[in-house]
């Protein structure tokens, strides 16, 4: 059965509701409204995301110099050179980023759990305490670590004076300092999404699991943890991406042999003024991150995410 003429109102007979012209007009209008509403966002994306990325791509395939300008010559060597010349720095970035993400997760989850379930009336106070240091510029916080961890500083100085620590022991200028700095800087970005997810968990689920004779640990593992997956997912994404691209921590806390790719990109842009090479490096980093993020979200499963939202 088909509707032959759109102008002919057909009574609601089988399954589908036929559309009256007036209704159709209203629907069209609605659709235009929808498109209209999408325009600002779309334009924003085009202007501030698509256009810069395209510029970056074009630049990465260009040759020339600052004085004479850059010309698109479809030179791909920047990309091959990115990987051949700076493989160790790419690897460092991903190693440090991964390590910082894991440590931040291990530290943040219990803290968020405690605040969400045992924080009581003072939850907001505890959250404020977590966030308080982050009202200070990241640069100053990182430089403070440099001061705290100094070889003869307030921490190691006395220990060394008491011969509780070898004289040449140091944390600064090692990968551990960089990972520590990254973790510290990223903790709120891990803690807050996890806290939000835990906070949303319906407490009756936990009661139900107790009623079903689950131990405390089983409740955490089989009820709370799965329900907080969206928070973990978001936190890990936020932390991993920014920790991998970060270079300030490395500059301040690192030493020889801790170079990260963010640093190389910075100096290619601002010291060498080799914009095409810097653009190529940025794109390689971006694509690598994108692949990791896609694999990560596929493997963690979007259904789990949706599932998390059905309580």
């Amino acid at each position, binding site marked *: 059965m088909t509707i032959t003429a759109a102008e002919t109102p057909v009574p609601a007979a089988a399954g589908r509701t036929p559309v009256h012209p007036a209704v159709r007009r209203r629907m069209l209008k609605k659709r235009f409204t929808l498109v209209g509403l999408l325009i600002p966002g779309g334009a924003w994306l085009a202007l501030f995301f698509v256009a810069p990325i395209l510029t970056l791509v074009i630049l990465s395939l260009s040759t020339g*110099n*600052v*004085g*004479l*300008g850059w010309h698109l010559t479809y030179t791909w060597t920047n990309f091959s050179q990115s990987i051949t*010349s700076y493989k*160790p*720095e790419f690897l460092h970035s991903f190693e440090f980023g991964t390590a910082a993400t894991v440590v931040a997760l291990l530290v943040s989850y219990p803290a968020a759990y405690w605040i969400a379930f045992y924080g009581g009336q003072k939850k907001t106070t505890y959250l404020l305490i977590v966030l308080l240091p982050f009202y200070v*510029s990241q*640069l100053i916080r990182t*430089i403070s670590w*440099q*001061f705290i961890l*100094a*070889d*003869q*500083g307030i921490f190691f*100085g006395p220990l060394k004076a008491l011969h509780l620590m070898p004289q*040449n022991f*140091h944390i*600064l*200028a090692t990968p551990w300092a960089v990972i520590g700095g990254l973790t510290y800087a990223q903790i709120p970005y891990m803690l807050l999404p996890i806290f939000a997810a835990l906070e949303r968990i319906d407490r009756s689920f936990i009661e139900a699991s107790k009623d079903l004779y689950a131990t405390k640990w089983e409740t955490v593992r089989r009820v709370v943890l799965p329900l907080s997956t969206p928070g973990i997912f978001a936190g890990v994404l936020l932390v991993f991406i920014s920790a991998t691209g970060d*270079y*300030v921590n490395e*500059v*301040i806390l*690192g*030493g*020889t*042999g801790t*170079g990260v790719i963010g*640093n*190389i990109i910075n*100096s290619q*842009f*601002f*010291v*060498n*003024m*080799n914009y095409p090479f810097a653009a190529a490096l940025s794109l390689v980093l971006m694509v690598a991150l994108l692949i990791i993020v896609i694999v990560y979200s596929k493997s963690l499963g979007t259904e789990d995410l949706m599932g998390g939202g059905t309580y």
Partner: protein
Amino acid sequence: MTDKSESNPLENMDPAIIRGMTMPRMTRRGFLGLAGAGMLGAIAAACGSSSSSSSGTATGGSFSWATAKKAGVLDFANWPLYIDQNTVNGKTVYPTLQQFTKETGIKVNYQEVIQGNSSFFGKIEPELKAGKSTGYDLMVITDGPVLTQLMMYGWLTQLDHSYLPNFAKYAGPNVKNPSYDPGNKYTLAWQSGFTGIGYNPELTGGDITSLASLFDPKFAGKVGMLAAVDTPNLVMIYQGVDPNTSGPSDWKKAAALMQDQKSKGIVRKYYQQDYINALENGDIAISIAYSGDIYQANQSSKGANLKFVVPSEGVFRWTDNMCIPAHSLHPVDAITYMNYVYNPRVAATMAEYIDYMTPVPSSKNYVIQDANASSGSNKAGLLAMADSPLVYPTAADFAHAYYGPSLDPTAYQTWNSIFQPIFQS
């Protein structure tokens, strides 16, 4: 030390430390604070974009000094804390600039927008390339790749020395006709300084005199090197090469030595400006250093006891230069000011504030005059300054002071390809 009447920084000081008086150089470098440079720069640029577009004659294209006219305005881009300043009623004022305005009627729009040669170049480069005014009539750029590029691409205005009688009369021989700008075609020196060795005598267990100490396994893990052009240049000086005339084969030899030093674990880190904190904190015992950094560290509340030394092999020297960007809107005002700062009286006032290597040797007489007119610690400070070889170096001090090479963009790429892998990995 903005106010000498409050502190007496120069009293009872080791002559070696007094030599370390290139303070503003370091201050402004320290001011950058690493990555904050970018942010500060952005803020400064945002605040400082008020280029006054009053009548005058823009340079570039068919510009000629013969038809150029004074506009009464000067847009001056400089580094932070790099000129004499005073605080009057909570407002920062610049005495020599005020005097200049009084004498010439030219209003100076003074902006401390330069935090790094490359980053500043990155900001003005699009305008210069497009043949537009950068919004500045005068800027201070260190000799090096950026200055070389500015000259090469024709992005500076050639100077007409008939406007510069003071320079001809009073400029010291060491800032006239420099290797990077023969005949001072484009630039006049603003101030200069030395890069040598800074160390903590307690940790080194004695005085350091030679660049060889930077490579001494005794200090393994306690040596700081700078991730800057200064480092390869000093290494070449150590190897007996004049960096000014060096080429890629010399660079490779220097790089090989640096690589060796690094793989033996002697280098703790290639520092940015933070090497000074590392020295203060005892993370490193010895480092390549800007003399002024050491001077200021010793003056700070922490009261570090560091020393600066001009190594026996020689020292790396650099000069910050005044230059007029192409398409400047007020070139006559700029060149009038360039002449003004070579007046020995003005140069003395500036030197007294910034304790820097001044390009006008005869300003020394005015410093001594000012010293005699004051008393106590002020007097001692000014007299010590007049005696300091880093403010008033003698010909002998310059005998072993070397400039870096003038790197064009291609050579600079080569330079970077040789040294950056060492700094960065």
